[in-house]
């Protein structure tokens, strides 16, 4: 399933009766997201912000047509809730929770692959198609429609950059948080494919960080397949090796996933890499003007 949402995308919220679940349900509804049902075992029949609550995903899918699900569920229960969603035919599943055991993440991603479900996260802020629908916990205000597609491994850093772009009058098409864990469902490359196809997107911003090889793989793909301009910012240049920098995935291990290696790969693929965050809007503006005439 494409990560580009529409205003008719039918969303369900698992864990809707919890503090985070109910708060963000309200936030998402305010943004315009079409939340058709919530799930919370034992709370069937209640409502949260007028959204009906079901005991099972089965009921939310069969009774209310849920296609996409977002989980506000504590880490020990994520595996069960995620597999429940996948098993019941959810095609796009957003896992916000941090600290999910890595074995559970592996198991649920393997099952998702079997069933053709796209997993966003774990440990992500979610995703948004600006002006149409937002799934997750990103603040509403910065996501104004525009030509820039954003893919990021970090939440607040995305808000920072999306906010800075918005301040310069540059809006966003879709913004996708890959998640900060070592193992997440999506690579940059998976979203780049969607954004390259998406007519609303004229330029792609990648917000990466040290650790893993998602940026390097993306660079190879961009070089061969991507026509739209790409701008990147990478966090963690000054991080010491072997230390986990907040995100479980932000760690340079055995000399792999270094800042320098990623910058080199991206630059060789024609990606403009900003050295510091505040350079991003001006580089984006320049490339938009030069390459798309905007």
């Amino acid at each position, binding site marked *: 399933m494409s990560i580009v949402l529409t205003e008719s995308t039918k969303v369900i919220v698992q864990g809707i009766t919890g503090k985070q679940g109910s708060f963000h349900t309200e936030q998402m509804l305010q943004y315009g997201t079409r939340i058709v049902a919530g799930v919370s075992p034992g709370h069937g029949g209640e409502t949260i912000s007028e959204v009906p609550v079901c005991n099972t995903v089965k009921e939310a899918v069969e009774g209310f047509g849920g296609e996409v699900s977002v989980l506000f569920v504590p*880490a*020990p229960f994520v595996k069960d809730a995620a597999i429940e969603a996948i098993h019941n035919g959810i095609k796009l599943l957003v896992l916000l929770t941090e*600290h*999910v*055991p*890595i*074995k*559970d*993440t*592996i*198991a649920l*991603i*393997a*099952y998702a692959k*079997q069933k053709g479900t796209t997993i966003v996260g774990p440990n992500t*802020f979610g995703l948004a198609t600006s002006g149409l629908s937002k799934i997750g*916990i*990103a*603040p509403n205000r910065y996501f104004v429609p525009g030509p820039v597609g954003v893919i*990021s*491994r*970090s*939440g*607040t*850093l*995305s*808000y*920072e950059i999306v*906010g800075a772009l918005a301040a310069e009058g540059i809006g966003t098409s879709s913004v996708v948080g890959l998640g*900060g864990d*070592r*193992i997440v469902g999506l690579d940059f490359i998976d979203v780049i494919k969607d954004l390259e196809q998406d007519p609303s997107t004229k330029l792609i911003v990648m*917000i990466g*960080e*040290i650790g*893993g*090889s*998602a940026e390097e*793989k993306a660079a190879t793909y961009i070089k061969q397949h991507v026509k739209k301009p790409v701008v990147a*910012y990478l*966090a*963690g*240049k*000054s*991080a*010491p090796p072997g*230390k*986990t*920098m*907040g*995100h*479980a*995935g*932000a760690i340079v291990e*055995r*000399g792999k996933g270094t800042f320098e290696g990623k910058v080199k790969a991206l630059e060789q693929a024609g990606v403009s890499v900003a*050295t*510091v*965050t*505040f350079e991003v809007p001006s580089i984006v503006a320049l490339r938009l003007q030069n390459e798309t005439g905007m």
Partner: protein
Amino acid sequence: MKLHEYMGKDLFQRYGIPIPKGQVAFTPEQAAETTARLGDVVIKSQILSGKRGKAGGIRFTKDPVEAARITDELIGSDLRGFIVQAVLVEEKLAIEKEYYLAVTIDRENRCPVILASASGGMDIEEVDPSLIVTYLVDPTIGLMPFMVREISEALALPSELQKQFQDLLQKLFALFSELDAELVEINPLVQSGAELIAADAKITIDEDALYRQKDLPSVEERSAAEASAKDLGLAFVDLEGDIGVMANGAGITMATLDLIDYYGGAAANFLDAGGGAGEEATTKALELVLERKPNAILINIFGGITRCDDVARAIASVKRKKSIEVPLVVRLVGTNQEEGWDILSEVGIQPFSAMHEAAKSAVELAARERGSV
């Protein structure tokens, strides 16, 4: 969570993986006793780092008196930045050949991976990748006997060792999987006579799964500050510089560190106060940063779920309670920004809007502070 070698070997034993005869010793007497029992022994410092040998942390003897002396010398000593708390006294093995064997997690393929090499005994990073067998394990079926046969084949393992290897790797994988490990490594896996024996044990357990692994020993490798941050649910890393940092979100915190670096400064710590930190959490986070006695403090908040007024109140209250003597630079934007700025101005702080300007200011103020000390 990394486990000490002797703990790893206890787990190996529980899973039926052959280990050398031996005993952990916390005192010279215990080491002497084990040496008297085993004869030719190796005495290995128990620290959470490799390369102990080069640092003098591994010794040989057959004399119990000598063993006690060595142990007395090692325990309490500093090896590569770690204080030795215990030694492992083990029979010295007759080594025919050294293999490398590990199970860990492959990020890119999202599955467990087995690494095996006939070039064991040295750091795996130093082994030519062409000499390492890398085998991805499909998580939907786990490790099956045929996979071990494929690995044996790729390793060109002598046929007389294949049955043992099969058995050992199945058990090692079971341990990895059942104990929520991120890494189990045997280096070297020694062929001694006709037997395969795990001469070392390196095990790392997934911290996020510790809640369901109650039977494991507990090892604390964090600094006191890192540990208390962890207790508060904050991500904290001690660093070498002098600018205390607090921000909300891992990515923005890293970016803040990078900006400090860009302007020629150096951060004293990494502290991610979380995406939705309230007044109390922010207060405690700030106190942690203060304890590091930095030359300046940079707070970088991009409020989304985090409310600027909460953060401002926390800063103000800390500033009122404790006299903060170092410069405090705050960048504060987002939800309830105006209220936040008002609160801060009451305690004499003029916040920034742009994070790079705040970072630049913090670097300059820290330099001035350093100069004035």
